[in-house]
């Protein structure tokens, strides 16, 4: 990987991490558009079919602590970066049957 691409990944990841760190403090906790519509139309809340490890971007047991949210979002941001890098590398021209 050349320097330009390394700088892009480091710089881009830093921006994403700053957003991830700020979000638990700055993000509105109001319901989103779909939840608001469901409330207005008196649709009852539903239970998740699957128990996720970090529900609602919080560490279980410290739901009220925004720093738990920061940790959850940092984990998620790095995980999304790594999964995208991995998947894109597997399904890229080099490994694929693309026209090269």
């Amino acid at each position, binding site marked *: 990987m050349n320097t330009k691409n390394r700088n892009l990944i480091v710089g881009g*990841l830093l921006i994403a991490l700053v957003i991830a760190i700020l979000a638990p403090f700055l993000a509105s906790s109001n319901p989103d558009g779909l939840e608001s519509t469901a409330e207005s139309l008196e649709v009852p809340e539903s239970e998740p079919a699957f128990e996720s490890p970090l529900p609602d*971007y919080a560490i279980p047991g410290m739901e009220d602590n925004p720093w738990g949210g920061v940790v959850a979002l940092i984990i998620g*941001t790095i995980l999304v970066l790594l999964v995208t890098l991995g998947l894109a590398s597997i399904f890229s021209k080099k490994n694929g049957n693309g026209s090269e």
Partner: protein
Amino acid sequence: MHIPDGFIPLWQCAIYWIIALIALGYSLKWARENLDEKNIPLLAVLSAGIFAIQAMNIPIPWGTSGHMVGAALIAIVFFSPWAAVLVLSIVLILQGLIFGDGGMTALGANIVNMGIIGGFIGFYAYKILKGIGRIPAIFIAAWASIFLAAIACAIEMSIAGTFPLVEGVIFMGLYHAVIGVIEGVITVVVILGIDSARPDLLPDWVSSRKSEVLE
């Protein structure tokens, strides 16, 4: 507009899953034909940035909030709606699996709305509008991508019997018409940011260098 479990009957969930999986297949085919060492880093950081910014809910009127989705951004920057399907699928799968954001039964529908509809509307709206000028075209394409994804979501909720059609479309449309402004502004800012930092990574149709050459 992440649909939770329980809002769509399972047999309808299965249909959205099938559509999503077929689209994911096409997006991987796109990846094999278009991704290389040069553009993979940008795809990965935009993917991570979209995950993070989707947690940044911005308050809108009526006690509601909304966040960017990012499908139009990816479709425009990577010159393909399939790129948006790929990135939004990764983000939505991890959000559902790890953070319980969007139900796993509704994952197919969420990929259909935010990835496929968002990506295709963003791509083709920009394609049609780019003659009016790059920045307004990006803004409107991004706005339309989330607005029409929300309308599709409302129609699906009506088919599911969860929302009445007219009220569902009015509420979802109204909220996401406002959230679309957030989508439009951030999409423009990010593309201008890439244009100044790494113009070599932008395709001709959204690059400022190219339009200067043409003019």
